[in-house]
C-alpha cells in the first residue's frame, strides 16, 4: 500500500478504532462487574461533551503541553505505520509522554503532581520492557525498521516469546490499568483524585482522551508486529492482547509503586533479556 494512503488511513481511522476499543473496554468491564455498561459510542459522546465545556486551568501554560503531547503521540504512531525505525518511534513516544508529565507538573496541584511523579515511575517501569522489544526483533531480523520487521516472513513471537510476554506486561502499565493504575485512576473519588489529569478540563481533557485512542491503536499495532507474517492471526492476537489487559484490569487491585518497578524490571530481566540472551547464544 502506498505510504501516504497508509498514513491517511491511520490518521482518520486511528481515533475511530481507538474510541470503539475504549467503548468495548467499558462495556466488557461493566459486564465483568455485572453491570450493563454504557453504549459502545460513549467515548465519542464524552469527547463531544467535553469539547463544549468551559476551559478552566490552574496555570496558564499547562494546556500547550497537552497539545504537544497529542502531536507527538500522533507523530510516533505515524512513524510506526510509515514503517520507520522502531527506536525512533519509542523516542518520539517518550518525548510525548514527558510533555504530558510536564503539563501535570505545571498545573501545580498536589494531585496532578503526585500523578506526574507516579507517571514517571510507570515510565521507568515499562521503558526497559519497551526498549527490549526492538532489540529482540533486531536480533532476529537484523533491522530496526518496522517495514523490514513486518516483511521478515517468520513468526517473530516464536523466537521472542519472553519479549512478547514482557511487552504485554508493559502494555498493562502503559494503559494505566490495574494493578498499575498508579498515576491516574478512572474514578476521581479515590485518594489520588484523578491523578495526572486532575487539573485538565474541557477541550484539553478531550485531547488527552483522543491521544489515548491513537496510543491504543499503535500499541496494538506493535503487538501485531510479533505476528506480522500471519495477518489474520496478528489481528486476533492484538484484540486478544486488548482483552487480556481488560481482564487483568478487572481482576487486580492497585499495587504500590515499588511493586510496579520491581516486578516489571524483574520481568524485563528474566523474560525479556533472558530471551535475547538465549537467542544470541543460539545464533553464536
Amino acid at each position, binding site marked *: 500500500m502506498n505510504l501516504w494512503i497508509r498514513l491517511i488511513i491511520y490518521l482518520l481511522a486511528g481515533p475511530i478504532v481507538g474510541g470503539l476499543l475504549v467503548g468495548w473496554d467499558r462495556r466488557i468491564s461493566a459486564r465483568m462487574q455485572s453491570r450493563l455498561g454504557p453504549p459502545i459510542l460513549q467515548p465519542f459522546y464524552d469527547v463531544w461533551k467535553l469539547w463544549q465545556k468551559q476551559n478552566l486551568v490552574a496555570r496558564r501554560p499547562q494546556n500547550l503541553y497537552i497539545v504537544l503531547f497529542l502531536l507527538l503521540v500522533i507523530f510516533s504512531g505515524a512513524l510506526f505505520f510509515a514503517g520507520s*525505525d522502531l527506536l525512533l518511534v519509542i523516542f518520539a513516544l517518550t*518525548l510525548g509522554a514527558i510533555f504530558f508529565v510536564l503539563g501535570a507538573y505545571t498545573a501545580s496541584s498536589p494531585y496532578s503532581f503526585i500523578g506526574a511523579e507516579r507517571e514517571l515511575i510507570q515510565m521507568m517501569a515499562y521503558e526497559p520492557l519497551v526498549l527490549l522489544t526492538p532489540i529482540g526483533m533486531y536480533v532476529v531480523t537484523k533491522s530496526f525498521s518496522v517495514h523490514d520487521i513486518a516483511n521478515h516472513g517468520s513468526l517473530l513471537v516464536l523466537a521472542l516469546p519472553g519479549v512478547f510476554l514482557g511487552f504485554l506486561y508493559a502494555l498493562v502499565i502503559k494503559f494505566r490499568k490495574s494493578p498499575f493504575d498508579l498515576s491516574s485512576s478512572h474514578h476521581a473519588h479515590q485518594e489520588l483524585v484523578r491523578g495526572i489529569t486532575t487539573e485538565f478540563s474541557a477541550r484539553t481533557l478531550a485531547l488527552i482522551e483522543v491521544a489515548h485512542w491513537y496510543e491504543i491503536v499503535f500499541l496494538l499495532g506493535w503487538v501485531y508486529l510479533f505476528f506480522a507474517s500471519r495477518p489474520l492471526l496478528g489481528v486476533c492476537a492484538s484484540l486478544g492482547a486488548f482483552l487480556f489487559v481488560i481482564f487483568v484490569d478487572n481482576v487486580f487491585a492497585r499495587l504500590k509503586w515499588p511493586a510496579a518497578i520491581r516486578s516489571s524490571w524483574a520481568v524485563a530481566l528474566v523474560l525479556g533479556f533472558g530471551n535475547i540472551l538465549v537467542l544470541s547464544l543460539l545464533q553464536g
Partner: protein
Amino acid sequence: MAPLPPLLILLPFAAGACLLCVRSDALRRILVAMVTLVVCAATVLLAVRPAAIPNFRVSINRHWLDLGTLAVEVAMALYVIYVGVRAKRPLIVAIMLAQAVLMVWFECSYGSHIEIARNLFIDNFAVIMALINGVVGGAIFLYALDYMRQYHQSAHPEFADRRPFFFALLFIFMGAMFGLVFANNLIWLFLFWEITTLCSFLLIGYTQTDEARNNALRALVMNLAGGLAFAAAIVWFYRKTGSIELQTLIASRQSLVLLPAALLCFAGITKAAQMPFSSWLLGAMVAPTPVSALLHSSTMVKAGVYLILRLAPVVAHTRVGLLVALVGGVTFVIGSLAAITTSEAKRVLAYSTVANLGLIVLCGGLGTAEAVWAGILLIIFHAVAKCLLFLCVGVVEHKLHSRDIEAMSGLIVKMPQVAVMMLVGMAGMFLAPFGMLISKWAVLKAVVDASPMLTVFIVFGSSATLFFWAKWMGKLLQVTESSERIGNELGAGEFIAIYGLSIATFLACLFFPLISSRLIEPYVLSVYGQSGSFSHGNLVIMGLMMAIVLLFPISFVNYGRRANIIKTVGPYLGGANLPGIERFAGSGGVAQNVTMQNYYLRELLNEAWLSRWGAVSCAMLLTGMVVVACL
C-alpha cells in the same frame, strides 16, 4: 596553520603565568577575555579546516626538551610528596615515589636512545577534543569571572580570595588538556596527564576547608594510582617494542601491546571517574562551580575517555575490551540509579556525568567502528549540555543560596532565563531529538551489533535517566508559592556563557550531521576503514521532531493572554481554597499550606548500598582485566 597546536598548548600556560601576577579585577577580565577569544578562534579554525593541517615537527633541541620534561616531572613529584607528608597520607607518598622512581629510572637509562618521529600529532579526533576544550572551556572562563567575584564578595566572604591563583590554574589546566590531546610522545602525554591531576587537586582544595582538603586528597590519590598504571604502561611498551609513540601503540598487534593498553585503560578509568573511582568526582563538587563545570565537561574526565577511545582499536574483540566495557556498563546503571536518590543538584549532575562516561567507556571497550563513532558523539554532546547545566546551577546557588532541587520549585517564575536554559540543558541530556539521545541511540545500535548482551545496561540505565531528569524539569515548572522575579539574573560573562552554551546545544543538534561527516566519520574511517552514520530518512524525522519541540516556547508567549477564553481557577486541594496561592481550609477550618516534594525512591534504592556494590563489582572487573592482560 602549522604551528597552531603548539600555540594552543603554550598560550594558556603563558596566560596562566601572567594571571598569577594580576591582582586587579579589571585587568584580569580583559586578559581572560582576550586569551579565551584567541583560543576559541584558533580551535574553531582547526575544526573548520582540519584537512589543511600539514604534519609538523617541533625543531627544538631534543636534549633540553627531555631535560625540561624530566625537571617538571620531578618538581611535581616533590610537591606531591610534600603534600602527602604534610597531610599524613602514606599512600600518596608511596604511589608518587613508585611512579617518580620508575619514570626517572626509565628516562635516565633509556631516554637518550629513544627514537621519536613525532612528539605532537593531529587528527580529527584531536581536533574535536581541542574544540570542546577551547569553546566549552572558554565559556567556563568567562562565566568564572563574574561567578568568582560574587563568590568572594557576597556568597562566601569567609574564604580567602585567591583569584589570581584560581585563574592561573584554570588556564594551566586548559593548556595541559590541549597538550594531552595533541601529544604523540607518551612521555609528554603522561606529563600533561599528571599536570591535570595536580591542577584538579589544587582546584578542588581551593577553599581549604577540611572537606575540600579531604576530597582533594582523595582525587589526588585515585588519579595518582591511574598515573602509576600509565607510567608502568610506558615502560612496558618501550621494553616490548622500543617505541613510546601513541600512534605506534594503536597500530601495533594486539597480543604485543595488550598489557600496556590495559594499563592505560585503567588510567583512563580512574580519570574518567568510573566505579570504583567515582567518589573523587562526587567529592569534587565542594569546589566553586566553574571548577566542577571544567572537570565534568571539557577537561579531566574527558581526558580519561579520550584515552580509552583512542585505544579502542587495540582492545577491540579482546577479553580486556569486554571487561572495560562491563566496567562502563555497570557504572552507567549504578550511576543513573544513584542519581534518582539524591536531591542535591550538583550531586545529581555528578552522578549523571559518571553514568554518561560509563556509556563512553562501554563504547571504548567494545571498540568497533560504530561504537567509537557513537562514543565521540557522546563526548561532544555531553560536554556542551553538562557544562550548561553546571553553570546554571551555579547561578541559582548564588541567588537562592541553596543547591537543593526542592528549593528550585517555581524557578520558571523567579529566574525565567536561567530556568529555561536549564530546561534546554536537561532536554539536551535525555530527550529526543537532542544530542545525548541521538548518541544513546547510536550507542544502542552499536552495542546490538557488537554484543546484544550488553544492551541490558543501556536499557535499564536509560530508564533511570529518564526519571531523574524529568522530575527535576517538573520541579522547575511547578509554581506553588507566590514568588517575585529575581532581578539581575546574570552578569555579562555569565550571560555570554549560558546563552552561548544553550545555543550550542541547539546548534549541535542541527549541525550534527555536519559534525559527524566532517570530523567524526573521517577519523573513524581512517582507523577502521568503515564508520557508523545515520540514514538520511532518520535525520529528516529528527528534524521534524525538533520542529515540534520548537513549538514549545509558544507557552511563554501565550502566558497571561487570552484571559477570556481560558479561565484560571485555583487548583483542586481537597478543601476550600483560601486566598494566596496554595492554601486551603482543611477539616475544622484550619488553614493548611500545600507542599509538594519529588519522589526519591529511597524505599527502593539506597545510595550507599549502590555505591558500595558498584565499587566492589567494578573493582573485581578491573582486577580481572589486569589479570587477563597479563596472561
